[in-house]
């Protein structure tokens, strides 16, 4: 900048200019250094609770997505839903399958500075076993009997019966390891607003229902986290999320409906990530309510619906017609299929059940028209209202009158889980996402019979499906450690369930998220989670 060899005295103007440039460079550098690298994720569901217990993680999947960043678990999933080590580096099972020994990672600290050890694991396991504190996900935790500290870095988990899915439970969001010290200091429910885990990012600020800001945890056992800040924002509207991503105001978005995804395809600034999901959609059938207690009628419903066309056309190619009660890459899935689109066959089956066309072409029996009450949410499941209308029309085409009731997404779960005599629906749209990736979890939650059918279901068997063979197959699968044998048992159960048609089977949607092209390391798990734990700027 200065030229001492120059003959001319260095002009004041030049000096000032030089100083000015230097100042700008300094400030610029400082500014660039001072400005934290931030990745912002606009989520479709609001986060209202950051703790793993007390019925938390209800707002699926948003709470889980933040939880996977703040907390670590003994084991975790990778992008293909395989189990990989996290806080436990290795493990063995005893020969009777009842005791699992985990060897823990050394040198791990909680975000409040306290050390992570076997005692902490025992604390967490016992906490989540307690049905008063862990009010949801019971099927995942009930089989666990207790935990034992062997030495500071070795812990044993004991189960009542051989529990094949233990690792899936430990990798689940509820398997998060929280700091016992923080619980003792701040109270049992403090994790809701003051989470303390061992993950790469810790809490900076939290506005429930609006925004979570995380900052890098400098003592993270895995080294320096990739960015300085992670921000999670609640943006309920899909168009808005897409607009924000386009404008560069956010870096990651989730839950993109197909009609918006296709418009993002050609954009060089945006990377689309689409992964087939684990949630088969369908209409749960109230199997207790005549005439739906008749197998012919239920099967007729399945023949009447153009499942393939719906998957291809309504979802613009981002879905596939289901061929089993489980999704394609759920563990234990077996292709069964059948129930092709055949309205003639549907009418045949209905006629066999005594329903014949009346004067106005609608089906009648003993003078009563066949009328079904259909419940659908709005904005809860992909394409819900559209699919509901298509299915209703298909049923009307074979002579069944359908009345649609649309419920806003906040109140929908309530309508699904009523006692039997208060059930207002004949068919209700529903899809279950086994958030631990296991087919046993799904079959268990949806198709194992309710101990008391009159009461709301203990898990999600809202159809009141009851088949003793399925019960024994699934219960056996739960205690079968060998994966092949387990898959076999599940396959048999799936076949029985599929053909018994407690659902109008529909489609499996792809889970579509997107990032700016300069963001890498974002994973989309088949369980509908968009994981930003390893996200970094290129």
């Amino acid at each position, binding site marked *: 900048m200065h030229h001492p060899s120059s003959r001319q005295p260095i002009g004041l103007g030049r000096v000032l200019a030089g100083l000015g440039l230097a100042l700008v460079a300094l400030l610029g550098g400082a500014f660039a250094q001072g400005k934290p690298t931030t990745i912002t994720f606009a989520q479709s569901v*609001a986060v*209202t609770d950051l703790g793993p217990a*007390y*019925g938390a993680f*209800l707002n699926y999947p948003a709470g889980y997505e933040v939880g996977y960043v703040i907390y670590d678990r003994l084991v975790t999933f990778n992008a293909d839903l395989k189990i990989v080590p996290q806080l436990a580096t290795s493990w063995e099972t005893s020969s009777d399958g009842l005791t699992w020994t985990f060897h823990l990672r050394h040198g791990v600290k909680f975000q409040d500075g306290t050390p992570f050890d076997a005692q902490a694991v025992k604390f967490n396991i016992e906490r989540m076993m307690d*049905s*008063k504190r862990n*009010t*949801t996900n019971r099927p995942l935790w009930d089989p666990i009997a207790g935990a034992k500290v062997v030495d500071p870095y070795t812990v044993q988990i004991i189960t009542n019966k051989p529990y094949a899915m233990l690792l899936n439970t430990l990798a689940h969001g509820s398997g998060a390891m929280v700091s016992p010290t923080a619980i003792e200091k701040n109270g049992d429910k403090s994790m*809701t607003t003051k989470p303390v885990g061992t993950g790469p990012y810790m809490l900076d600020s939290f*506005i*429930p*229902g*609006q925004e979570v800001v995380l900052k890098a945890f400098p003592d993270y056992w895995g080294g320096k986290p990739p960015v300085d800040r992670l921000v999670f924002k609640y*943006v*309920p*509207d899909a168009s*808005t999320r897409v*607009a*924000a991503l*386009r*404008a560069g*105001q956010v870096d990651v978005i989730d839950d993109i409906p197909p009609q918006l995804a296709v418009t993002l395809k050609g954009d060089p600034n945006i990377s689309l990530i689409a992964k087939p999901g684990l949630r088969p959609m369908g209409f749960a059938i109230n199997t207790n309510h005549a005439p739906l207690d008749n197998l012919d009628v239920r099967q007729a419903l399945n023949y009447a619906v153009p499942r393939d066309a719906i998957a291809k056309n309504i979802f613009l190619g981002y879905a596939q017609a289901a061929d089993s009660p489980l999704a394609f890459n759920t563990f234990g899935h077996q292709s069964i299929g059948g129930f092709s689109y055949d309205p003639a066959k549907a009418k045949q089956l209905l006629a066999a059940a005594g329903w014949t066309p009346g004067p106005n072409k609608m089906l009648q029996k003993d003078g009563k028209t066949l009328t079904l009450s259909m419940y659908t949410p709005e904005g809860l499941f992909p394409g819900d209202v559209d699919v509901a209308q298509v299915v209703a029309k298909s049923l009307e085409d074979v002579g069944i009158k359908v009345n649609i009731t649309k419920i*806003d*997404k*906040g*109140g929908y*779960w*309530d309508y*699904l*889980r009523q006692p039997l005599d208060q059930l207002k629906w004949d068919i209700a749209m529903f899809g279950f996402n086994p958030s631990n990736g296991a087919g046993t979890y799904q079959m268990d939650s949806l198709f194992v019979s309710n101990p008391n059918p009159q009461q709301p279901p203990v898990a999600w068997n809202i159809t009141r499906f009851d088949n003793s063979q399925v019960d024994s197959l699934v219960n056996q699968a739960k205690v079968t450690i060998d994966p092949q044998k387990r898959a076999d048992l599940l396959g048999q159960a799936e076949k029985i369930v599929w053909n018994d048609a407690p659902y109008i089977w529909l489609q499996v949607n792809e889970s579509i998220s997107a990032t700016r092209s300069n963001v890498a390391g974002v994973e989309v798990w088949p369980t509908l989670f968009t994981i930003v734990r390893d996200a970094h700027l290129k």
Partner: protein
Amino acid sequence: MLTYTLWRIARIIPVALVVVTLIFLLFRMVPGDPARAIAGSQALESTVEQIRHQLGLDRPIYVQYWNYLKGLPRGNLGFSGIYQGNAAPVIIQHLPPTLALLGSSILLTILIGVPAGIVSALNRGNAVDYVISLLVVGMLSIPNFWLGMMLISLFAVSYHLLPSFGFSSALALVLPTLAVSARLVAVVARMTRSSMLEVLQRDYVRTARAKGLNHSVIVYKHALRNALIPTITTVGLQAGYLLGGSIVIEQLFAWPGIGQLMINSVGLRDFNMVQGITVIFSIGFLVINLLVDLVYAIVNPRIEYR
């Protein structure tokens, strides 16, 4: 004047009381169990009971009512099941974006609506008046959310000119303001036009003309000031529309104001929050009316107030 002001302020209290009572009763009539809805479908009975207790729903209705009234002067607008605390701070946090939107809408209305009305009045009967009147009636007929969608489609989607999401910058105010104020601009233009027309025929204007004063002076000094009075009243009267219209527009633009808070709370079944926001809207409306009346009383000293 002072007594009038005090009298008007004092009158707000019984009115507010009745409004609050009405709203309270209205939201107690909602079907379904809000405690269960907030607790979630898989919660244990004990959790539902807990939330019910938090929301105060396990007490008889008159006790709930009394507690609610007691809490109001202390700034407690009800226990929000979602935010797990007093609804008031949450609402206050969401106020600035809405106030910014309303403020810029009123500003735009005055900047465009008033001149449009004046121009229209001065050109009565000819093409300019006709065109403006046509635009006015058009803007009164277009649904504001559709206008918003078209604006987004044109300026944000097709041509990436303006932001359409959230309160990211001052520029983000442009599209939502246009959507909210279109109707108000039309109403104000029309009102300004007719009051200008009326004033231009008044005796004192004729007298001023007869005295030979410059035409523009007459218009801008005398007529305008008097024509603005009904305009102020109109803006006040339309405040209700503004508040309501902002709800729908906030939803469309993901604007983080109390309108969006309200819609989200309805969806999340947080009725105490919805109730609190309705109370705020109504009190706000009452205050705006009061301000309008006071300004009116100041500007037009010929008013008789009892």
